[in-house]
């Protein structure tokens, strides 16, 4: 009975109620959406790290990680792999050989981590094949070719095997992109000049252009002028199983480009079969097995299961490998909880305001109700219910709108490219896919109800304190 009365009371002053409800809708939507946005950003960072660099679970010999000693290969690899395959939640397995070595070209040499993989298996775990810059290679296509290597664009740059050149075609396309003529004219001076890495090119550009011009046109020019010759050759040197130094020519089968430049500069992927031949390691000698699970959250528990099944090996989930990543997710969630609370508090005050006005306006009516014997508790509950209805109506409407908007943007993604520079440097991509969990909505609903309840306490108490006699006489 009180429910119905309370509900009707809410709608007696339609405008006022609608105003409050609208502000609740706005608040809820704003809060939920921004949290979804943040979640999306972080989830993406985590996903990128997992799918491009460290994967979900890494398994090695117990002492391998101390010094990466190439002699520590995994015993019984076939058995180990089938044990892993049979574990629930595992969606991809890749066995790898890990060797440190040097990459050499006519210009430079630098230390690298060489990873021997089976390209097909590896695709199921890391998605670097999808990060290959178009036109630089085909990811080990053509199985007959040997000594192919997948390297990072930053490594190619470091080894001076990328090219920047401003030939007629490039200049024409830059013109087509709308670069002003005086800029193009300046660039003509560099026509025919050949640059083998980014630093050289930027240096020349900085000499030609003023700061502002450089900033504005620099990235576009760099992008157009950049090129890479498919199948460029370079030499990898490393130690074979007898501690002899071995060198072999490799051809680049693609340049991958991810946000983590340290990884990109130092990690070279080659076929396990090639490495086995060159190092003299027997077939099926692996140093590391990486595992992909269905969801990042499952990795921890699956890792634990595997650790029990494989007691002689060290099984580490990504959270243990990069605790900072894990912390980031947790910390951000906490921050946003606080943010949400603040929004709810702000809304609460709005509701308090309104309910106060409600109570004070209806002094006469409330006085009357009390006079005719309505129980104080009922009066209190009625006020409280009105408040809860207001907040709940707004809250639910707000959540529905949020769900719709999130669904839409989750498919298309939101482009934050104006803020791209800052984000990219951090390893976030500029395209964000907001996401939110069902549990989150549950919590939000509960919080909204609580807000409604708390907001009503003061006004309701005011209502109770009304002296019925004075109230009836009041205006």
């Amino acid at each position, binding site marked *: 009975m009180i429910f119905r009365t309370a509900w009707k009371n809410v709608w007696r002053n339609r405008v006022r109620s609608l105003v409050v409800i609208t502000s609740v809708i706005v608040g809820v939507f704003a809060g939920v959406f921004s949290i979804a946005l943040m979640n999306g950003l972080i989830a993406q960072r985590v996903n990128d790290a997992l799918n491009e660099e460290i994967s979900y679970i890494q398994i090695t010999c117990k002492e391998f990680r101390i010094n990466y000693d190439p002699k520590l290969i995994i015993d019984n690899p076939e058995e180990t792999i089938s044990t892993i395959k049979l574990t629930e939640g595992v969606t991809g397995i890749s066995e790898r050989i890990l060797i440190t070595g040097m990459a050499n070209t006519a210009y430079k040499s630098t230390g690298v981590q060489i990873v021997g993989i089976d390209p097909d298996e590896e695709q199921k775990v890391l998605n670097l094949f999808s990060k290959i810059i178009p036109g630089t290679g085909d990811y080990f296509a053509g199985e007959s070719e040997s000594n192919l290597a997948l390297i990072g664009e930053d490594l190619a740059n470091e080894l001076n095997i990328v090219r920047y050149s401003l030939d007629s075609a490039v200049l024409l396309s830059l013109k087509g992109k709308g670069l002003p003529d005086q800029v193009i004219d300046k660039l003509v001076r560099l026509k025919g000049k050949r640059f083998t890495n980014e630093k050289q090119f930027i240096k020349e550009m900085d000499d030609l252009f003023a700061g502002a011009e450089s900033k504005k046109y620099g990235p576009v020019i760099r992008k157009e002028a950049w090129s890479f010759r498919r199948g460029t050759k370079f030499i990898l040197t490393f130690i074979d199983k007898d501690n002899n130094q071995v*060198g072999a020519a490799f051809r680049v089968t693609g340049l991958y480009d991810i946000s983590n430049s340290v990884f990109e500069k130092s990690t070279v992927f080659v076929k396990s079969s090639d490495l086995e031949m060159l190092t003299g390691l027997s077939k099926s000698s692996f140093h590391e097995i990486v595992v992909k699970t269905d969801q990042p959250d499952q990795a921890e528990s699956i890792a634990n299961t595997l650790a029990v099944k494989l007691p002689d090996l060290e099984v580490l989930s990504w959270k243990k490998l990069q605790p900072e990543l894990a912390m980031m997710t947790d910390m951000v969630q906490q921050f946003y909880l606080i943010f949400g609370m603040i929004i709810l508090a702000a809304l609460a005050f709005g509701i308090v305001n309104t309910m106060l006005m409600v109570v004070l306006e209806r002094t006469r009516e409330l006085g009357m109700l009390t006079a005719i014997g309505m129980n104080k508790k009922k009066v209190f509950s009625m006020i409280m219910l009105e408040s809860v209805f207001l907040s709940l109506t707004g809250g639910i409407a707000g959540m529905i709108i949020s769900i719709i908007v999130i669904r839409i943007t989750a498919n298309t993604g939101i482009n934050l490219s104006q803020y791209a520079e800052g984000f990219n440097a951090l390893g976030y991509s500029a395209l964000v896919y907001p996401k939110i969990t069902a549990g989150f909505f549950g919590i939000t609903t509960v919080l909204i109800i609580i807000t409604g309840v708390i907001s009503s306490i003061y006004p309701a108490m005011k209502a109770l304190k009304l002296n019925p006699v004075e109230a009836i006489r009041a205006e």
Partner: protein
Amino acid sequence: MKGSAFFPVLIILTGMNNMITSGQSLTASNIVKIADEKFNGEKSSISVMSMTIIRPSWQRTVEFKNWSLGNKYALTLITAPAKDRDQTFLKRETEMWSWNPAISRLIKLPPSMMSQGWMGSDYTNDDLLRESSVVNDYTHEVIGEESIENRLCYKIKMIAREDAAVVWGKQIRWIDKKDFLILRAELYDQEGFLVRTEIGSDIKIMDGRTIPGRIELLPEEEPENKTVLYIQEIKFNVTIDESFFSQQNMKNIR
């Protein structure tokens, strides 16, 4: 000049003309082979050399004595300047060791340590340790004849084989017709752009052989940089045993 038998890179050539000219047809590959075998084929040597490193704002000269056996073993003792004196370097196959008397410590040098050039020079890790074969890793073609310092030379173009583990895509060598000395070499990257030029000059006779007394290394991208090697004394075919090239000897040699 590449794949040195000595440490550091060094050109020692013998003048065993007779052996060469009898019964061998001079194809491009043979010419290169002969020139190459002049130093790689040499059994052993002891030499005194100095290396001057020239940079835009400074210059430095290092003097050293060098013992070598084939192209697998070499021991180098630094004799000047004072700061670096008595340091020794040992090369055994593809490993390099360093002994520093100031700290009395023997250290195995990891390849990454040498990505900067030996003693600050333009000689790289690749030059010193990589064992590539000029004969097997390239295809050869005589493309002309030119005169350098009044010596008529074969001009030979060498293209690296597809699978050869060499960083150079191409080399052009000017090999003197009379003594098979490499008087000039141009090293190109995979796309055919010049990266480094090496010039041999100051031809003289030492221990009965004709050799260039001075070798210059000129990096193309830094025109103001240069490394010059001078051979002051050299003796060939001395008796040295493999056991000479030991860590123990690194400490004792003077």
